[in-house]
């Protein structure tokens, strides 16, 4: 009997000792807006969080009284935590949070009071420091900054130099999507490699790029659904044609794209600039064999689009808003911190004054000695502004379904896009 009691006592002690693990948090002073002080917490994910951690050092030289703690999660986990915290009326949230741009409208819609209006804190003055499409992505409907712009992903087509040479295709000759398909046929004949990877039932990124290059998301500027526009139809028809010519490698998910990139089963990968980091990381043996060209275009469209990018927000529940704003302002407008993330992790800044730095303009040895980052920087101002709203994610999954039906079940482009449009309308009525 005594033995059991002592076991229970030991367990109780263990539990109590675990309780005392928690260190007291100082929420004491917060300072004023001129001289912020106290401590703030920042949530980010992998390389972005690493960049933030690195930027803290310089930040603290400027603001010695502010303690910054960067906490690192994977992005899906971060959204889970953020949603729970916002639903619990701001409990347990950090003072600054990183978010992908396409998620911002959804969060604003669900939690209109969840984040601070940065215009009220004076962020308005940086309006011209960033490219227009990015600024549009982080502002609310009234044109106020809700998030401070950070990185972007201007899109291009990564291609295998050796495959193109073997098939005798000049990448500069690819101007339109038709040229792209023709080139794909030649390359397949010469090398056996397919043209590009698309996870057909789950990934509509190529469609998104095509739409943005024509100035649209799934919606037009007046917030009408654009899935039956001529732009949407011809985009989907190109994808169908690519599939009909057996040029699409239907590989599953992100791992599928990376696998195809590393093992040489595709000749091109249309993606955001940040994919350069992944290629260098995962395929060091292919040095000198990759390069980029701009997206092919449609009649009357541009050759530019953006894939991904993220920004930083301040949850309204932050108890130390002046310090949080000081960090956000510093982090998004300090050239050195931006270049640090770019150089080390390939995070492409939206702060325009960084683009003249040598890291941007020099030739890249891995990428066939081309100045690929300069090439990307050159186009950021021309990336069309598009309307991303809270239904973006729903529209994306509907289009992925439509894409699967059109390519894999041979349904017609018009009917399937029409159906997707109707489904999206129903979703919006809810």
């Amino acid at each position, binding site marked *: *009997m005594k033995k*059991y009691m002592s076991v*229970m006592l030991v*367990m109780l002690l*263990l*539990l109590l000792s*675990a*309780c005392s*693990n*928690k260190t007291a*948090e100082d929420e004491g002073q917060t300072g004023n807006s001129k001289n912020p002080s106290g401590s703030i*917490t920042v949530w980010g*994910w*992998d*390389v*972005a969080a690493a960049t933030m951690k690195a930027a803290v050092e310089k930040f603290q030289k400027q603001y010695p009284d502010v303690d910054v*703690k960067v*906490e*690192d*999660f*994977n*992005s899906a*986990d971060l959204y*889970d*935590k953020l949603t*729970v*915290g916002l*639903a*619990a*009326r701001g*409990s*347990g949230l950090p003072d600054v949070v990183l978010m992908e741009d396409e998620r911002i409208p959804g969060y604003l819609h669900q939690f209109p009071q969840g984040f601070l209006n940065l215009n009220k804190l004076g962020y308005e003055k940086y309006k011209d420091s960033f490219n227009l499409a990015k600024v549009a992505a982080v502002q609310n409907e009234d044109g106020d900054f809700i998030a401070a712009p950070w990185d972007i992903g201007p899109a291009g087509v990564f291609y295998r130099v050796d495959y193109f040479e073997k098939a005798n295709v000049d990448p500069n000759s690819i101007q339109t999507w038709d040229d792209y398909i023709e080139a794909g046929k030649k390359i397949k004949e010469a090398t056996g490699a397919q043209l590009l990877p698309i996870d057909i039932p789950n990934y509509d990124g190529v469609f998104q790029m095509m739409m943005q290059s024509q100035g649209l998301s799934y919606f037009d500027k007046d917030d009408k659904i654009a899935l039956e526009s001529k732009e949407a139809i011809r985009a989907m028809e190109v994808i169908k044609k690519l599939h009909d010519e057996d040029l699409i490698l239907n590989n599953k998910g992100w791992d599928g794209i*990376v*696998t195809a990139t*590393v*093992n040489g*089963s595709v000749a091109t990968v249309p993606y955001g600039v*940040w*994919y350069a*980091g*992944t290629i260098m*990381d*995962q*395929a*060091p*043996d292919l040095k000198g064999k990759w390069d980029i060209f701009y997206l092919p275009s449609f009649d009357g469209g541009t050759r530019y689009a953006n894939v991904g990018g993220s920004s930083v927000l301040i949850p309204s529940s932050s108890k130390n808003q002046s310090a949080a704003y000081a960090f956000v302002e510093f982090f998004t407008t300090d050239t050195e911190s931006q270049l640090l993330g770019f150089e080390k992790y*390939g995070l492409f800044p939206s702060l325009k004054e960084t683009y003249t730095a040598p890291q941007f303009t020099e030739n890249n040895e891995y990428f066939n000695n081309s100045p690929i980052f300069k090439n990307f920087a050159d186009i950021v101002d021309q990336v069309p502004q598009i309307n991303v709203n809270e239904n973006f994610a729903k529209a994306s999954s509907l289009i992925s379904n439509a894409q699967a039906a059109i390519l894999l079940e041979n349904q017609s482009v018009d009917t399937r896009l029409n159906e997707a449009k109707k489904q999206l309308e129903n979703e919006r009525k809810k």
Partner: protein
Amino acid sequence: MASKKISSKIIIYILLIAGVVLSIAPFYWMIVGSTLPSGEIFRVPPRLLPGDYLAKNFQTLNESLGIAKIFWNSLFIALVYTLISTLISAMAGYAFAKFKFKGKNFFFFIILCTLMIPSQVTLIPLFEMMVTFNWLNTYQAIILPTLASPFAIYLMRQNMKAIPDSIMEASRIDGAGELKIFFTVILPVTRPAMAAVAIFLFMSQWNSLLWPLITLNSKEMFTLPVALSSLIGMARIDYGQLMLGTTLSTIPIMIFFLLLQKHFISGILGGSVKE
């Protein structure tokens, strides 16, 4: 006749071997993957023999996670949780199975009802509670909320019901107190059920991701699933590191299972000869 028997045996063996390969291959690949650098994992044809990158993977894994602390967190949480929760469910199950008290059926009904509430519903209120207690980022925030597991209570109750009342009556006549009866008579008899419950609870806590993820914020407090999940970056994933972490995280479950398996199996056999 004999040849027919042999041929059917061959077919059975082929099917069984296929089953073994199907269930072991992913594990094997995970172990091989943990000894390869990330780029090698995607090579076609895949490498089927372990490489020499294990130490390097371990080093990077340790650098990015601090593997000892993470392991300790997971182990501490899972063990304390399993111990206390098994005891609680045994006690509750015993009370519901063997005692008569007012509202017994009503309370049992309530406990069963909580089985029907999806955990997502309680997530946010529970989280708010943890914030109010200032318990974010602590062990108790993970251990306490699910300590009384309705499923385990139910399982223990069903098992305790099978124990004849006469055992308890005999002990009472011999002058044993109620606690002594519980610890020295009832618990040893229900060892197999307790082992099953303990394995179930240990696994569910060891693998639990969402709740620890929501309540834990700093790297030093992460449990293994949360830490492994944090390794998956936006654009870069070190698969070798991830595979090694996953391999390591399966080891304690295996050990725990093997330790309790003995009780588990002896219980099944013990039951079969009793009647």
